[in-house]
């Protein structure tokens, strides 16, 4: 390390890569990424993925009030007066910002959407959704992780743990707010030396330090709620040298009971958080795409405790400055008893991977063979996503 300009980040990258790789063709690129060529302008395109863990009830978020069977399926409970989307669909009144974006043609709804998973386990469904495989546990890394790896882009997850979706990438970071700055400048150096023989710790620390060094400084006092994390995500994505992909997640959507009351708190919180994300992205909203998704929908019929049980078809949202919005993208299956899956769930007619695919293509510009490793076997792509 004779060049004094090379930062300790570069040193750490060398540690991270190990001596063997240091002499391979990979090294200069990695050093360049970490050091001098940081000045290279990153892509302007931005992607934010929001995972709602626990299964959002798509029929509560986007009720199909124009469906002939609506009253018989959902009419029994008090449905809050929905905001109109079109003759068939409405939007939960708690999603006022999203409704405005829809009216401004910056948001589309994808309805009756699900992965190909047809059982009703949260955990298997999330595994499949995040891994991007065609069944649970077919893949052990995530679709975003593989896309990042193939494109050498970086991403940040606003969570303590690395979500499965981002696993498999060298340049995926995690971030949560901290009350305490690192005081001792020698501490991290010493830690890096101590971790030299532990590949996973070395890599994680190198990424954390890179994050600390450049773009990722957060306002102190930032909260840990979704709203604060979404704002922070916008800040990270807006930083000139920051990551261009952010991952947010929030749980609590498993509304087996008291669904109406719970969603009337949670949906406005989600709505506010997304509005805050947009605000902190500022002008970069124009080049940002936001995908909001969940592992599956909930039973179309109410259960016995003013809630809904695990179901199948659900809803996803696509928002951003380039979205050809103002539309509900769906091949609507209908809510009549014979149209439903197992007589109880909204039948999915749209594969979530076909929604993810055009986003990955636009964000990472990957060729078809690389796409095959990102979403193996996914062929269909949702049409008419983009305006520009």
């Amino acid at each position, binding site marked *: 390390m004779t060049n004094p300009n090379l930062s300790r980040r570069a040193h750490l990258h060398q540690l991270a890569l190990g001596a063997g790789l240091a002499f391979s063709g990979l090294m200069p690129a990695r050093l360049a990424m970490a050091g001098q060529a940081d000045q290279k302008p990153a892509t302007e395109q931005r992607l934010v993925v929001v995972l709602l863990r626990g299964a959002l009830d798509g029929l509560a978020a986007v009720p199909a009030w124009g469906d002939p069977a609506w009253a018989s399926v959902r009419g029994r409970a008090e449905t809050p007066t929905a905001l109109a989307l079109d003759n068939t669909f409405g939007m939960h009144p708690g999603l006022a910002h999203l409704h405005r974006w829809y009216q401004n043609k910056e948001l589309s709804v994808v309805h009756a959407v699900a992965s190909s998973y047809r059982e009703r386990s949260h955990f298997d469904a999330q595994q499949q959704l995040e891994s991007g495989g065609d069944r649970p546990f077919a893949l052990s890394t995530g679709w975003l992780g593989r896309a990042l790896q193939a494109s050498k882009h970086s991403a940040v997850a606003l969570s303590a743990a690395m979500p499965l979706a981002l696993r498999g990438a060298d340049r995926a970071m995690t971030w949560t707010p901290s009350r305490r700055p690192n005081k001792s400048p020698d501490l991290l150096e010493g830690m890096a030396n*101590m971790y*030299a023989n*532990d590949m996973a710790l070395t890599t994680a*620390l190198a990424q954390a330090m890179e994050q600390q060094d450049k773009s990722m400084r957060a306002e102190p006092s930032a909260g840990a709620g979704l709203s604060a994390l979404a704002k922070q995500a916008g800040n990270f994505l807006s930083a000139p040298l920051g990551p261009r992909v952010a991952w947010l997640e929030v749980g609590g959507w498993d509304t087996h009971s008291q669904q109406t009351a719970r969603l009337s708190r949670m949906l406005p919180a989600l709505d506010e958080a997304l509005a805050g994300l947009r605000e902190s992205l500022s002008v970069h909203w124009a080049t940002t795409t936001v995908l909001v998704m969940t592992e599956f929908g909930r039973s179309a019929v109410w259960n016995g405790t003013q809630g809904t049980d695990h179901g199948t078809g659900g809803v996803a949202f696509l928002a951003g400055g380039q979205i050809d919005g103002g539309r509900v993208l769906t091949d609507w299956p209908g809510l009549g008893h014979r149209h439903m899956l197992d007589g109880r769930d909204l039948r999915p007619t749209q594969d979530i991977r076909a929604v993810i695919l055009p986003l990955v293509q636009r964000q990472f510009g990957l060729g078809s063979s690389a796409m095959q490793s990102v979403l193996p076997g996914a062929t269909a792509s949702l049409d008419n996503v983009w305006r520009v």
Partner: protein
Amino acid sequence: MHASNLASHRFGYSEPSLHKLAHDPRSWVLAQFQSPAEFDSQGLIDGAKAWQITRDVLQAALNPSPSPDNSQALDALGGMTSARQLLRKTNLHVLSKRWQHMTQTPTPVAERWVQFWANHFCVAATKGTTLALVWPHEYEAIRPHAMGHFKDLLRAAILHPGMLLYLDNAQSIGPQSIAGRRREKGLNENLARELLELHTMGVNAGYTQDDVTQTAKLLTGWTVGQNTAGLTRFVDNLHQPGKKTILGNIYPEGPQALDLLLTDLARHPACAHFMATKLCRHFVTDTPPAALVQSIAAHFRHTDGDLKAVAMALFSHDLAWREDHPPKFKRPEECLISAHRLMQKTVSNMEASVYWVQSMGQALARAPSPQGWPDLSADWLSPDAVLKRIQWAERYGEMYSKDLDARDLMQQAFGPNLSTSTAQTIARAESGALALAFALASPEHLRR
């Protein structure tokens, strides 16, 4: 890792010295299951009292009375009511007794065993109705049965008020029951599904949606609430009449069906295999050898789920003691407990410690889902998590280094497994505080 290190660090919560177990690590582990140190729950509230405290918090949130002191900080539930203060005080008190036990118990492997089952039968305070019930569930339902038969543990775990409320069975009503016919109320299949998927058989074990629905019907009647004064009761009026067919077996109407079902589930081969897989993954390594899992599953079946016998089988199996399994990354709470055991210090500042464990990714009593805390290294080892552990270690270095020599501490605790790079980093540290920070953030201590 040498056998004494495996016993101390992988199976237990880290001993300050390998000396007392070095001559026979296996016996040191196995003896703990013959006479596990008891948790002293004297003076702790029972489930019914916890239910009342929770109810009072929810009622105070629903009917806010003008606060006598307007300067009180508001919290998420609308204000730090006296009910809320009592909840907080109660939970912190239990947690401090719990941590005292975990940091001081002479049988740490047995304690890890208890904690494994507490996490397996996860109850989380992520709902209003369970705010005070997580710890009572652990000391009332899990601890007394963790070395007994699996079926008894299962029964206690799912019938505790904490679980009935967490997974909604308290509200589930048979549609054709007396109450169900009177009111527009009915089934909630949350507990039924997780009983099959998470508690016994595991996902993809062959049950169908119809089995889930039938199980939900069988479970109706088991409830807790105002009418039962916070105690678990079987209320006939809520119970779905008629026989239920689950996995091909027919169960009668009434409360006796539950024991029949739980016995069948506990004896299902999928249950033995699922429990063995989880145990080996937790105590041995992320991807345990199939032969080990099969052997433990066989013990589970042959002893009819005798958990003490299963523990003895696991901790006397050569494959569990292999020195070359990839180590695991400790969960944050494990990390905190082992640090205190190594330093031989009690947890003095409860609130700060709760914060640190949360900042490292584990919000205590608030596991993210009924699956409990995840158990693979990849679930915990992330850039942010490593940074937070370093920050924590730095703070602990400042707090605790005055009368500790980190070099000596690490030599005593890890002996032959202390790596040269860790020993050198600690030896070269510019202060005692930094030396202890390096020790606590060392790979030796973060992993097990």
